[in-house]
Structure formats: structure tokens, C-alpha cells
């Protein structure tokens, strides 16, 4: 979904200019002021992150692309909520079907009637099992959503690490 996040001013700084007073500055902030959505907090430097995970959501139209592409969010178009719910279900379904094999977030595209799910997987299973799971998920999803569902899978040895946080 195309959305960019920008936070309103959440910190108020009071500074007193009197030379005689002891307090120089006063921060008045509530405990929940920082944005935490889709962000990974900085840690000790041992946690590998992909490019998708490393960039926060306000970079979406600038350094990041879109994970799910449909016309529901355009001005004058309908079906936003339905597409979103379908996307969430498809992501959970594929995550559960290929448990532990996903290297990155899914990219879901809708071209006409067809739902195309592009996935990056790790080579944890044998290719025969991969083929079976791909066919199974395609059939199940197309029966559920009454539209052709296509799964395009590319496999990698390891996750592509962009950064360590």
C-alpha cells in the first residue's frame, strides 16, 4: 500500500534564558512519542537485515518500492479494504506453507484478474517439495479467491543481507 509516514512534533523543548536559573532545558515528552512502525531498533550489530527490513516506511516512494500493487488506493478507485484483507491472508498463508523458507517479504501484484505472488525463498527444501507446495498454494488460493493465482518463486542460498543492526 502506498503510504508514507511522517510524525508530528512530539517533543517540546523549554529553555529558560535566565542566567540565574539552574534548569537549562526541559523536555516534555510522553512515553509513546517515538514512531515504531516497521522499524528495527539499533542493537549490537549482530542482527542481519534485508534491504526491505532495514529501511523505515517513510522511505517508501523514495528508496523502497511497494510490496503490494493494486489499484485500490488510487483516487476514485474502489476495493481498498478487500485487496488489503486478501493481501494479509495471502501473506500469512504463504508464510505458513513455506515455513522458514521465505527470504524476504512477498510482492503481490494484481494484473487484471490474475493475482501474482512473487516470493524469494531459501533453498531449504528439495525442489520436488517446492514444486508441490507451489502447486498446492496456487490451487488453494485460486479456489479461495475465484481468480487465477500465480506464484513466481526465486530461490537463494542465503538471505541477502543489507545491513547489520
Amino acid at each position, binding site marked *: 500500500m*502506498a*503510504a*508514507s*509516514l*511522517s*510524525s*508530528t512534533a*512530539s517533543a517540546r523543548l523549554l529553555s529558560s534564558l535566565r542566567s540565574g536559573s539552574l534548569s537549562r532545558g526541559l523536555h516534555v515528552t*510522553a512515553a*509513546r*512519542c517515538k*514512531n515504531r*512502525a516497521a522499524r528495527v531498533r539499533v542493537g549490537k550489530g549482530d542482527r542481519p537485515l534485508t534491504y526491505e527490513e532495514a529501511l523505515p516506511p517513510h522511505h517508501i*516512494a523514495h528508496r523502497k*518500492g*511497494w510490496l503490494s*500493487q*493494486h*489499484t*485500490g*488506493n*488510487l*483516487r*476514485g*478507485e474502489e476495493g481498498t479494504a478487500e485487496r488489503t484483507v486478501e493481501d494479509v491472508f495471502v501473506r500469512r498463508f504463504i508464510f505458513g506453507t513455506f515455513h522458514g523458507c521465505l527470504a524476504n517479504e512477498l*510482492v503481490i*501484484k*494484481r*494484473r*487484471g484478474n*490474475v493475482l*501474482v505472488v*512473487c*516470493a*524469494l525463498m531459501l*533453498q*531449504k527444501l*528439495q*525442489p520436488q517439495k*517446492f*514444486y508441490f507446495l*507451489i502447486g498446492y498454494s*496456487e490451487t488453494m488460493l485460486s479456489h479461495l479467491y475465484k481468480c*487465477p493465482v*500465480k*506464484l*513466481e*518463486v*526465486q*530461490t*537463494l*542460498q*542465503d538471505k541477502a543481507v543489507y545491513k547489520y543492526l
Partner: protein
Amino acid sequence: RFSRVQCVISGLRVRPPHATPAVCERRSRDSISCQPAGGPLLPVPRALGACSANKTCNIIRSRLPLASSTYFHTATVFSSQPSSITVTKEPDALFQRVSLLVKGHDKSVLDSYELFATMAAKELGIAISKVCELPKDTERFTLLKSVHIFKNHRVQYEMRTHYRFIELSHLTGSTAQVYLEYVQRNLPEGVAMEVTKTAMEKVPDHILKPMWEEDPIDNKLSQG
């Protein structure tokens, strides 16, 4: 009078745009036979040696600069058969203006789609009268950041819609049908949406000449 000719152009070499940076591409022959069944962690040179019988696998592998990655070959969904050409005796409809409004979230995708549509129109010999970029629409809303209380802390979201406007002039109905079908089949995924407005040209016979140019004396005599 034009007779309506319906045909679909298949095999035009203009490459349609796609939105994402092509995470997954489909190959005609995948390298599944190269992958050993037991361990997924074999290094690349050994995998190359294992598939010496399959020559195309080696070619695919050598193109990839990164560590080994495989593509799964799945059934093609988008293959369409070309429809037959039919000729009818009805007069063809004439359009003075066919305007396409393309909407999307990503401006670069709309740029490439505009290039694709204008190139297709030029190849078909359609006159393009106008190609312009309308100013973008931004839909913003402010929500509370927290689930409970903290009214002073909000979050703002926005959704931007970019537009492209392409206007074609003086088309026949069959040309418009062919062009629109081709261009709509190759719409990028979800990011661009098309709204077409057509204007018809039609002059009825009884309006062609004004009534006072005909003989008024004859009319009066027949009525009186």
C-alpha cells in the same frame, strides 16, 4: 463508408512496462536438474559440474553474478491466442477523440507506460494530439498514534496519485478497439489504471441543411 474490420495485433515487439524491479523472472528452462537432491548448500562450481549434461543450465548459471539462485518454472497464465479477422458490412464508428487517463502511485512506471503507449500509437499510425501530465492528487489523513489516549501525538499518512493524459484524435472504431485492447492488456500491475473517454462524430441528415434554405413558398402552398 468504412467496413468494420476487427483484428487483434499480436506480436508487436513493444515491451510492456512492469512496476517492480523484477524480483522474479521466468526462464524457459529452469535449472532444477542442476540442484542436487540431498544438500542445498553445495557451492556453485560443483553444481555446475553436476549438470554437465544440461547445457543451458551452465549458460544460465554463468550469467548470474551472485550466489546460485534457481527459478521455478510454473505455467504461463498470460498467453493469449490471436483472434481471427472478421469483416462486416456495417459502417465503422468514427471517433473524434479517444482520451486515456492513466493513474498510478509511481511516476516512473507512468513514464514508461506513456512511452509504451505513444510508441504503440505511432506504430499503428494513430495521431496523438496531446500527451500531458496532470498535477498529482494527495490524500492525507491524520490519526491518533496510540491505541488509547495520547491525543497530542498523531500520525499522518498520505496517498499520492499521479496522472498521465494521452489524447488520440480521429480514429476509426476498429482502430480504437485494437489499440485499446493492446494497451489495456499490457497495463502494469495495479499501479496504473485507465479511464477512456470517447467522443463520437455523427451528423444526422435532416440537420445538414437549414429549413429556410428549402423553398418556403412550396411549404406554404401545401399547408394552405
